[in-house]
């Protein structure tokens, strides 16, 4: 790995740590949901980075599907948290 890839991995590791801390400690449920959503976005970027690292475009499909479907899952969870308030 060259310097750019190493620094990208380091930054993503830091971001994952921050999101994980918020997910474990977050005082309310919306905090935890937003932290989980942040983690999914970081993961999408990480999957793209792995595609670059392995020099294979096959892994880009995984990132695409992940990015699209985590949106649906998070919207469903957000609807669940909304309750019966209209």
């Amino acid at each position: 790995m060259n310097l750019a890839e190493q620094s990208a991995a380091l930054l993503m590791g830091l971001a994952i740590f921050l999101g994980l801390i918020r997910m474990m400690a977050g005082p309310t449920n919306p905090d935890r949901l937003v932290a989980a959503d942040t983690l999914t976005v970081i993961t999408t970027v990480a999957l793209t980075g792995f595609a670059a690292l392995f020099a294979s475009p096959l892994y880009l499909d995984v990132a695409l599907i992940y990015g699209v479907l985590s949106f649906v899952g998070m919207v469903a969870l957000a609807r669940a948290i909304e309750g019966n308030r209209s």
Partner: protein
Amino acid sequence: MRNLTTLLFAAGLGFLLLVLAAGLPYGHPPMLVGQGILQQAPATTGAANIVTSVVLAYRGLDTLGELSILFAAAAGAGLVLGGHRRRRRPDPDGGFILIAGADLMFPLLLVVGLYVILHGHLTPGGGFQGGVILAAAFFLPLLGRPREALDHTAISWIEGLAGAAFIAIGLWALFARGDFLAPMLGKGVLGQLFSAGTLPLLYAAVGLKVGAELSGLLADLAATEARDP
């Protein structure tokens, strides 16, 4: 006390499994079957994705069994939830952003799902994953407007026809070649969209069936009565 025993049991089981796993070879699997499949699969089935040729050609009967298990699970869940489909008080509509966003995302999700299904023999993905994406696509507008319902008759027709198509392709191969689900229709050029014979057709049937089943399941789950805490 019971919790302590359980923890001890789980830790002991983990340790035992770890001791067993220490004897497993890592990085050098004793892959006799896998090696043979890797060598002859492209010539036999014509699919670039070898996992697809394992799922649909070498283990096609297994996939049929999996489809029936999934059908049984979805039918069982629909049966269990069945009598309570009518709701006294439906959920309120989502906000403007959710409705507009769902309408925008719907065709994109549809295109992504069909791409994943149709390119199942070339890139990662296939009928199961594409079916899941199709189910999510049809569920997303329902999340914004909970009062609208999916057409359950159409879903059952699609599901039944797709399952029948899978079995019909298998029976055709049985009568023409003597093997159930044997690859038919020639192999084509490796790596092109129209290649690998009947495998894309089989994956299309699987995708439609899985998508119809899962969206029916999601609609059933969404239509059961909400309960106040």
